[in-house]
């Protein structure tokens, strides 16, 4: 009796300890990644790193200025396509009741959210690169937009559904047409949350590499033309990392630090917005 109780207690302690250990195991890579990116990347950061063009191997200096601009540019193109479509589809899902059409769209959006980004890259290649016969910023932007739309649609739907029906009724009872009620009352009330969702999805696509490899490709120079290949931070990190040159490895770490900062700031901004929004609602 006593022995079995002891054994059971021992099992309990052992497994509790094991689970605690797993928390540490899970957090170890995070600490390692963050620490090494900062350690290896910080030294290379300088003003010229942000403003200069890349230099060939062996030449001192040089930066990723064109890649920083290119990332911003392609993300902007992605937003131009992705935000209206994603948010619009979300509003549609929230406003249409559970008809067959709406249910089909909801299920499709959920499945699309799970499609690997590299597959989306091939789609953008087929839709934009093949007809234009060249790699381009536009193709990259379309690829990222396709990645934004499903997640943004589902997030928007949930947020619009959270707006109380009584607000919609109040507006309609003032003699406001439905479309204006949707846009100016319902959507406006949900706007704080939607902005958060938009920030999160921008943060996500800004870190994407795979769908850009054969859409935006890369470019050694500045480019702001939508029909030309364009450099991005992520593709630049990839190219530098798999190169055999020490100098470029260092640049990859620094560019990774820049990327993490961009993504991190966007995420923190989104968190902060959520927090103030919740406080305001109370």
């Amino acid at each position: 009796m006593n022995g079995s109780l002891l054994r059971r207690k021992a099992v309990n302690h052992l497994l509790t300890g094991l689970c605690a250990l797993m928390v540490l195991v899970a957090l170890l890579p995070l600490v390692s990644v963050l620490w090494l990116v900062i350690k290896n990347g910080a030294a290379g950061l300088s003003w010229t790193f942000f403003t200069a063009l890349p230099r060939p191997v062996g030449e001192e200096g040089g930066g990723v200025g064109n890649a920083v601009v290119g990332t911003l540019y392609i993300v902007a193109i992605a937003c131009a396509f992705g935000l209206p479509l994603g948010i619009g589809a979300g509003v549609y899902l929230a406003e249409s009741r559970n008809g067959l059409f709406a249910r089909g769209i909801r299920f499709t959006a959920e499945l699309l959210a799970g499609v690997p980004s590299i597959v989306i890259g091939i789609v953008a290649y087929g839709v934009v690169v093949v007809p234009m016969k060249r790699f381009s910023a536009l193709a990259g932007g379309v690829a990222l937009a396709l990645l934004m739309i499903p997640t943004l649609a589902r997030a928007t739907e949930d947020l619009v559904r959270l707006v109380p029906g009584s607000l919609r009724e109040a507006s309609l009872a003032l003699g406001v047409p439905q479309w204006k009620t949707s846009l100016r009352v319902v959507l406006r009330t949900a706007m704080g949350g939607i902005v958060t969702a938009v920030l999160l999805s921008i943060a996500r696509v800004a870190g994407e590499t795979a769908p850009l490899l054969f859409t935006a490709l890369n470019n050694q120079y500045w480019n702001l033309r939508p029909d030309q290949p364009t450099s991005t931070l992520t593709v630049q990190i990839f190219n530098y990392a798999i190169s055999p040159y020490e100098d470029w490895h260092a640049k990859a770490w620094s560019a990774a630090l820049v990327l993490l900062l961009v993504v991190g700031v966007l995420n923190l901004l989104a968190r902060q917005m959520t927090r103030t929004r919740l406080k305001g609602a109370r």
Partner: protein
Amino acid sequence: MRARADTPQPAAARPRVNRGDRAWGLILSALGGAVLIIAGGIILSLVRVARPVFAEVGLEDFLTGQDWDPLSDVFGALPFIYGTVVTSVLAILIALPVALGMTLFLAEMGPKWLRQPVAFAVETLASIPSVVYGLWALFVLVPWLRQTVQPFLGDHLGFLPLFSGPPLGLGYLAAALVLAVMILPTIASVTGEVLKTAPVAVKEGALALGATRWEAIRMAVLPHSRPGIFGATLLGLGRALGETMAVTMVIGNSPTISASLFAPGYTLPSVIANEFAEAAGDRHTGALAALALVLFGITLLLNSVARLIMQRGQRKLQGRAA
């Protein structure tokens, strides 16, 4: 029918719709329909680019072919399918116990103040871009595997085919490890949600009968959470299968099938990432698109099954609550 001769048509039966409202309804339906068009477009454009290969090689030969030599127009997908499945399954085997242990500790055992910071850390883990993980894996994980882990495993377990061969660092094991790190947040967040819904009464009942905390978890929490954990596993698997950059940087890029986890291999997304931009002609491009189609099919299947399982689990819960 009910309306009498002198009453006008009942208004609500066919209410006059404001012109702006009708336009708004159309715009919204079009935006919603765009999602369907995108889904259709994805399949169509993949099939269109991939068609030359299916026409020439045939689906079966393509899926079972073991050789990949674009220059001689030989296209076999098996090494990539093998590599994708091996790395993803291995990643699940590593990540699932860690995620489960962690979420169990946070939900059932550990102090409450730990939850918030760990949740934040896991969110951060999820937000790190794939290419940064690849960089880290290439310069930190791979050397560690090559110098420490693989020699150790080779010395002690080298008689197993799994751990045979020279310690290269790059290969299936490195890819699986970095994948495990990357899918951990997905699995942890879903299992975390599932554990939250475990019935407290059963657990407390078990505790009141003198069960230890672990026994209460095993009897009350785990059986209840099993479908959810299974769904989380499938979702994680879906992510792992499609993950590209980090794997591409450490898999070793060798279109071969090897039993040893130390050996270099290749995965579906990696070969697309490496070869698509510089594909040698339409057939090569087509073969890569065909690989993407295979990947698309697998992830679609996995995700639908995962959603169905989790939905059914939820419905069962709601049924029980009602």
